[in-house]
């Protein structure tokens, strides 16, 4: 190891934090361009309506107005609509039914918050005031907001989908699975709702679009997790400009959780409209209300799930049917979430010979639904872990031991649902979690709680997830419109400092630290002589961005490859300078030595010589020290672990408190344990949010979003978390075999694992089979009342 204090495996303090916590970050809204104007989007107040007419005459004359654009302007300019980059084929072989998604509504609005017109003015206030003067005549149509009702509804959200069904997808062997159920000794059935969530990144979305009339090129500053993907989509599908005439910059971004992967109407409109106002830049900064209404939401599944077991209690089959709401339009990666990121994880950590999953994806008159921290895997884990827990209870088996008996125990393990697990030791994580949580003394704690009028419960979640979705050829065969590799460039400067240009994008993950740790490890340089450059399509050669916990597993792998090339090149330079054979040059701790001699050169000296070119033949060795790499992984990586949650429920009010939480995760080798722990804690916080607090509610009658602010949408607060001394984190390690650093992904695990752990604990505490998320005091109290009544 080059440097135990700042290399791989060290809990290095985050290099970027001083800048962020002292208010020196540079976010999109912090950027102001010369002659900048401001955009305000007029949004639909209706869940579903035709647009009969839009009269902008009065608004256009309002003070400060520079321009107003509506759907017709977009259509006249032949600007393409928003796309879904993943095509799903239905069971019957038919294609996905994608309705049109213009960046400004054309003839129809389909959810409250849909974009109707944009007003561009000298100030934000002027734009907003003028927007109120636009007269839109709507023909209000009936709407459907409930996923469960969409296919039976007479309301038709899109012409292409008569029953509002986007696709009917299936995975697994239906016949074999049905046979397993026929022969089952015991079947556990559950109806499950996975509640709709609103991401609420701390920084709302924002964009500045500008057109340079001299070079005839566009620049878009935007809050994106993947600026190169944004450039690709805006070029290739919206047809705004070819890629070399469009620069996309995603500067500091304040959280994404998936919601900033997608290409949104607002950013496309800002960059498009700039040309139509003579090239003046246009800034839009969404407010919190707009974030609630128009950021892509997450989850929203209605599921029927069944587990079959033989007489010995061995799991023999699983059958799942899910209705997944995708909202009013198909967002960028929406179709992949309830399919290949969901059905493929249904085997959980268990050896299940027969699995069949069927998914009906439906349109509803709600905000689009797309990937949100975990994306499909939290929904799958919730199904698997609620089913397994319930089955264990029905069979009167200890839920930990039932799981242990059912675990996959040898690797690689091919599941019946595509995934091939490469490595793991699920029993080890379970053992560690049981010990850390002192499971054997749970009964004592339960009795203590009872003395205080509290019902104590314990819940397990043995999750598995798949990160670094790959390889590109495989995802392409499943419908992906892109490859899922990553790229990196390593520039060593003549004095030996290092710039890493990465296609990954940091928006809270701490890449400026962890990526630098890899450079320290590999080149032996000081961590302060390394900088990480990301988020600019003019600087970084290419990239796929950050989501699905892929930056470590895929992004760092690309950097690692480029660093290997640097080392190889530097060895050749060092050999030439030290007049020896390359084979005799060794590189360790930042120093090149020649075997069997006392000759040595520091990394910085070699870098300088590489640029001087004085001491080697430049026709044999190219001048300079700069390398690039693309990396396409051989397989997903499979983080897994066991989380155990203990709750206390107040009998009188139904208020649930998480009194103890143990998370044991296997992420392979850790680059920066402190950052990994932070990711687990943050992920668990979001998972607790889903289980206890958060839930988007649309009003059935009006189609309005009732949870449109923090007054009604309950974001997790510190007080909702277990106290830090009762929030235990542990790690096991089975290094990933397809990754040279042996690492897996850690960004989403907490959000994936926590919801079933919490709900299993509550149902255990109050003695019910099912309870809906979020398990608010009202929900829990109501369930207890029903339970009491049933017992009477």
């Amino acid at each position, binding site marked *: 190891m080059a440097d135990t204090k700042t290399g791989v495996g060290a809990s290095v303090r985050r290099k970027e934090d001083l800048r962020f916590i002292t208010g020196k970050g540079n976010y999109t809204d912090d950027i102001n361009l010369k002659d900048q104007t401001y955009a305000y989007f007029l949004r639909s107040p209706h869940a579903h309506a035709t647009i009969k007419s839009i009269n902008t005459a009065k608004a256009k004359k309002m003070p400060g107005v520079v321009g107003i654009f509506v759907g017709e302007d977009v259509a006249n300019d032949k600007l393409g609509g928003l796309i879904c980059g993943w095509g799903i084929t239905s069971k019957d072989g038919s294609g996905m039914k994608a309705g049109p998604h213009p960046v400004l509504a054309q003839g129809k609005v389909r959810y409250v918050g849909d974009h109707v017109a944009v007003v561009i003015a000298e100030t934000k206030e002027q734009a907003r005031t003028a927007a109120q003067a636009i007269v839109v005549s709507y023909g209000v149509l009936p709407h459907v907001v409930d996923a469960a009702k969409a296919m039976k509804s007479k309301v038709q959200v899109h012409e292409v989908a008569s029953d509002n069904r986007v696709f009917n997808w299936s995975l697994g062997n239906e016949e074999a699975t049905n046979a397993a159920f026929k022969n089952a000794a015991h079947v556990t059935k559950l109806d499950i709702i996975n509640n709709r969530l609103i991401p609420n990144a701390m920084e709302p979305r924002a964009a500045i679009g500008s057109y340079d009339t001299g070079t005839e090129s566009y620049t878009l500053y935007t809050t994106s997790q993947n600026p190169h993907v944004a450039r690709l989509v805006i070029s290739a599908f919206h047809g705004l400009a070819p890629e070399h005439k469009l620069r996309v910059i995603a500067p500091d971004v304040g959280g994404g959780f998936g919601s900033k992967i997608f290409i949104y109407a607002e950013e496309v409109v800002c960059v498009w409209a700039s040309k139509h106002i003579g090239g003046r830049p246009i800034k839009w900064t969404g407010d919190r209300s707009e974030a609630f209404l128009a950021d892509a939401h997450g989850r929203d599944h209605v599921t029927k799930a069944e587990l079959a077991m033989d007489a010995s209690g061995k799991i023999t089959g699983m059958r799942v049917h899910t209705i997944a709401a995708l909202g009013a339009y198909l967002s960028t990666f929406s179709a992949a979430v309830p399919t290949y990121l969901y059905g493929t994880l249904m085997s959980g950590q268990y050896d299940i010979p027969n699995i069949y999953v069927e998914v009906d994806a439906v349109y509803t008159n709600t905000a689009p639904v797309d990937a949100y921290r975990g994306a499909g895997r939290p929904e799958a884990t919730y199904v698997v872990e609620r089913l397994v827990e319930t089955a264990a209870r029905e069979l009167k088996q200890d839920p930990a031991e039932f799981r242990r008996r059912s675990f996959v125990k040898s690797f690689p393990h091919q599941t019946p649902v595509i995934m091939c697990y490469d490595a793991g030791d699920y029993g080890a994580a379970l053992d560690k979690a049981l010990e850390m949580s002192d499971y054997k003394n749970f009964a004592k704690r339960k009795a203590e709680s009872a003395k205080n009028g509290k019902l104590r419960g314990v819940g397990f979640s043995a999750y598995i997830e798949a990160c670094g979705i790959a390889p590109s050829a495989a995802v392409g065969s499943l419908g992906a419109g892109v490859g899922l590799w990553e790229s990196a460039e390593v520039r060593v400067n003549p004095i030996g400092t290092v710039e890493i240009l990465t296609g990954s994008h940091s928006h809270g993950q701490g890449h400026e630290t962890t990526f630098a740790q890899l450079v320290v490890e590999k080149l032996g340089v000081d961590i302060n002589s390394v900088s990480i450059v990301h988020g600019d399509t003019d600087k970084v050669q290419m990239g796929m961005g950050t989501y699905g916990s892929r930056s470590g597993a895929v992004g760092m792998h690309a950097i690692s490859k480029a660093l290997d090339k640097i080392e190889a090149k530097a060895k050749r330079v060092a050999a030439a300078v030290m007049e020896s054979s390359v084979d005799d040059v060794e590189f360790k701790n930042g120093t090149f030595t020649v075997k069997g001699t006392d000759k040595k050169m520091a990394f910085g000296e070699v870098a300088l010589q590489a640029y001087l070119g004085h001491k080697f033949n430049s026709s044999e060795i190219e001048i300079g020290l700069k390398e690039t790499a693309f990396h396409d992984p051989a397989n997903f990586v499979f983080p897994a672990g066991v989380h155990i949650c203990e709750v206390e429920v107040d009998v*009188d009010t139904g208020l649930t408190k998480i009194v103890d939480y143990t998370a044991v995760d296997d992420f392979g080798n850790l680059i920066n344990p402190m950052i990994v722990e932070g990711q687990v804690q943050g992920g668990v916080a979001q998972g607790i949010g889903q289980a206890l*607090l958060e839930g988007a509610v649309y009003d059935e009658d009006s189609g309005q979003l009732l949870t449109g602010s*923090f007054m009604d949408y309950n974001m997790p607060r510190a007080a909702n978390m277990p106290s830090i001394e009762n929030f235990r984190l542990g790690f096991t390690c089975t290094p990933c075999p397809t990754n040279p650093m042996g690492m897996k992904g850690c960004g989403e695990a907490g959000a994936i694992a926590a919801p079933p752990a919490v709900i299993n604990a509550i149902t255990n505490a109050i003695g019910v089979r099912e309870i809906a998320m979020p398990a608010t005091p009202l929900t829990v109290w109501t369930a207890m009342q029903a339970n009491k009544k049933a017992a009477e």
Partner: protein
Amino acid sequence: MENFNYHRPATTTAAAALMKKGKDAKYMAGGHTLLPTMKQGLAAPTDIIDLTAIKNFSGIKVSKTSVSIKAGTTHMEVATSKEIKKAIPALAEMAGKIGGVHVRHKGTIGGSVANADPAADYPSACLGLGATIETNKRKIEADKFFTGMFATALKDGEIITAVHFPIPKKSAHQKFPNPASRYALTGVFVSQDAKGKVRVGVTGAAATAFRATDIEAALSKDFSAKSATSVKIASKSLMTDMHATAAYRANLISVLAGRAVAAAK
């Protein structure tokens, strides 16, 4: 937010005159309800009359029998007042549970009582302690003050100047916060005076704060937690929304009343 004229009068007389003159004028005594509604475009007054510059508009006076709090006194001042903590500790505790720190430093007792938000905390204390609300015109008993959702006995232009709370023998406040907004999903303020008279003020449960007379009757006979919780509250006139059903709120009233009795000091 629309433009408006901003006034900072030095007397209640000047304030009332401005109110009369303004086309759609509003008093502001902290602004923590008014300003958010204006930002959301739900209110657009032509004139804002900020009452906080009125002379002698804030301050706390504690006598042997009562606590008098002038209208412009902030929640933070009430929560941290040594005299109130001694005289009616439950009142100081309650004020310390309103909103967050920022809100407590700006929000005032007069503003809260005049606004009569069905989920605000002060109305339960006013009813639970039998307060008298003093205005620039008269004195009004709390029992006759809260008349409906955001509705009070205040006449147009009338300004609250102080709230007087009789000091009880013992009292306590219990609040079950709305999980999201942290307003009272239901809040109960219980007191018992030297003669044994019990008052139970309830907020957050109905369109306006009210007294739970059934629980008062039970507690008058037997001032115990069990006596309070054994009263079954009718849910008929209580609110149902996405955070709580009427039945759940009815349950909370007895549960919280019981806890208040147990905690009363």
